[in-house]
């Protein structure tokens, strides 16, 4: 994966943009991780395998498994740099509640945080609970600044690591972390496409629907309780449905003739933006989820679709082919103040506004007619192509910390789900089961 930056300079655009900055600046937040942000060097001294830590699946012991998950979470947090302690010559002799003598040496080598712990099942009774202790040593204070003890069945071993990783991120940034977030997506089952939810790292996929036909493009509610999506009722009509994850209970939100696609709940959950062609061609609408009143947002002879809310909920990015091929447009959430955002290339679609507000990810068609991931600032001043290569990339969705994008990429027509950093680094495939996984949507953080 190469990182290719395309600097886009256009006098006319910058003039148009200058006005946008003046009037809509509130959606461009300062990023907590500024470009000069230095990642915090963190070492994991080990999660010791205590009695009964044999994993039910055999092979890897539970402590080791938790340690591996924790390492991956720490790496993906992008808040910490994972330091390999042995390569610094640090030999940890004892992992107890007190810091090991070697930690001071690690601190002198520039390691800011050292994490360790133990995991096991008391008495080795396989029906008893798994217990995991985690400790955090801060080099600045030269002391153990805190710890955690998690209790639960062996099936929550990964969750223990995820929660501990999020506690670390929270401690050092005040943000909740992404290790406990989920990704909703669509997976092919026979001739059907059903909704699934998995952990953010691709583990523990769970099937939500079993309709035997098409369910498309899920999006989360801001409280993570629901997904909204398009379903083909009786194969012939498209409705927008909502499903409650805890119960599987479903409601139909929009049912009318024509295409009813790309639903997206506003950040406050009070409005659903979606595209419908029931009055002719695909137009954007806004449904008040409390009063159930519907407001039409666009009026033109072309297709308008894929609304994505700005983090303030005051603006929408969307796709429109009113000028020929599809391009990304912005407008106020009441449908006023429409302006075109993308001018480069003849096919730009599927916008996703970053939760930090500073980027909009989308699918761009390159001069070689490849469909890749691009990002653009809402003022149009900067844009970058994040991915290269053969796959048809689609459906970008941001992590709640704004540091990653999850998307689908299809080689030979079969799609899998990947995540990539917002700067185009660390491409990582996260689905390995299922022959066709698409339309990922990253949950909010909790």
């Amino acid at each position, binding site marked *: 994966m190469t990182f290719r930056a395309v600097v886009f300079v256009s006098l006319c655009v910058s003039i148009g943009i200058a006005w946008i900055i003046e009037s809509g600046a509130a959606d461009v937040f300062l990023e907590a991780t500024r470009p000069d942000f230095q990642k915090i060097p963190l070492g994991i001294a080990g999660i010791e395998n205590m009695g009964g830590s044999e994993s039910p699946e055999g092979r890897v012991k539970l402590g080791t498994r938790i340690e591996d998950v924790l390492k991956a979470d720490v790496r993906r947090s992008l808040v910490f740099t994972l330091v390999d302690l042995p390569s610094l010559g640090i030999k940890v002799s004892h992992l107890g509640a007190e810091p090991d003598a070697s930690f001071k040496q690690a601190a002198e080598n520039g390691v800011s945080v050292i994490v360790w712990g133990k995991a096991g099942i008391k008495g080795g009774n396989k029906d008893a609970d798994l217990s995991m202790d985690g400790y955090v040593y801060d080099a600045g204070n030269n002391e153990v600044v805190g710890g955690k003890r998690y209790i639960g069945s062996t099936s929550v071993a990964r969750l223990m690591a995820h929660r501990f990783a*999020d506690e670390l991120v929270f401690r050092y940034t005040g943000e909740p972390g992404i290790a406990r977030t989920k990704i909703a997506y669509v997976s092919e089952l026979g001739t059907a496409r059903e909704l699934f939810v998995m952990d953010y790292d691709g583990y523990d996929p769970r099937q939500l629907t079993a309709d035997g036909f098409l369910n498309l493009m899920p999006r989360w509610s801001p409280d993570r309780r629901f997904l909204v999506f398009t379903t083909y009722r009786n194969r012939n009509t498209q409705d927008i449905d909502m499903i409650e994850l805890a119960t599987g209970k479903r409601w139909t939100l929009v049912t009318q003739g024509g295409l009813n696609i790309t639903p997206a709940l506003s950040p406050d959950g009070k409005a659903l933006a979606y595209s419908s062609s029931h009055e002719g061609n695909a137009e954007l609408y806004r449904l008040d989820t409390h009063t159930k009143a519907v407001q039409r947002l666009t009026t033109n002879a072309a297709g308008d679709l894929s609304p994505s809310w700005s983090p303030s909920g005051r603006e929408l990015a969307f796709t429109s082919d009113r000028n020929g091929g599809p391009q990304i447009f912005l407008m106020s959430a009441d449908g006023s103040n429409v302006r075109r955002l993308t001018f480069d290339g003849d096919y730009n679609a599927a916008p996703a506004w970053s939760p930090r507000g500073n980027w909009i990810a989308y699918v761009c068609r390159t001069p070689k007619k490849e469909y890749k991931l691009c990002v653009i600032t809402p003022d149009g001043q900067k844009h970058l192509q994040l991915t290269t290569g053969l796959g048809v990339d689609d459906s970008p969705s941001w992590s709640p910390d704004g540091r990653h994008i999850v998307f689908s990429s299809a080689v030979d027509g079969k799609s899998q789900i990947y995540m990539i950093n917002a700067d185009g680094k660390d491409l990582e495939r996260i689905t390995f089961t299922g022959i066709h996984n698409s339309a990922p949507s990253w949950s909010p953080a909790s």
Partner: protein
Amino acid sequence: MKTLPASCLPLILGVIVLGIPACSKKAVRSGGDSQALQEEMARGERAKGGAGKEGANSSFPDTSFSGRDDANSLRGLDRNPSEERLGGNAGNGGTSGGAGHTNAMIAKADSGAAARQLAEIRAEQVASVAAGLRDVFFTYDSFSITDEGRHALSGNAEWARSNPYAQLKIEGHCDERGTSAYNLVLGEKRAKAVRNYLVELGVVPTHLSVVSYGKERPFCTEHTESCYSQNRRGHLVVKTGK
């Protein structure tokens, strides 16, 4: 949001006008949808739906976000950590005593659903083959009907006129290139172009319905131009069920 200073307007318009030539390849427009026909169809759909079905359903729960979800939120690192019990075996993000929002996450499986759908699709296929209906194929990015397509549709129109009780469904399909969402719109444009031409040929509009499958139900799964051209299609189906 402040209103746009009037002096900036010509500049903004300039941006838009200058931007348009960047779209070197525009979608080819067919005769397009006649707005009158659109409205007629929409009225037909609404009439079928009955009172109260127009637009939004009124009975779904309010999705307003009331704030952080305490059950799942972090408790912070502690010098003397108390035990934190993690919920059940369902891998939810929560701790015990919490709502465990994502706890169930298991499909309410209707095990017969897939089989029933398949049986209905097969019945439609059989009826469509028996009627001798022919499909219409499109070029890349386009929804205009070719001469060959017009020829195929004249045969279909003849069948429809001599079978006045038949309901025809026109499915719009796309090849695998491009985004899923935009291909749904393109598929609908294709299906509607087919419908409009059939109406021009005298088929009663209320006997025709359109549905777009975008690139979600391809006919051909190889990755060659000949396969792509098979998937850019207006597929005609005799409706046998609802």
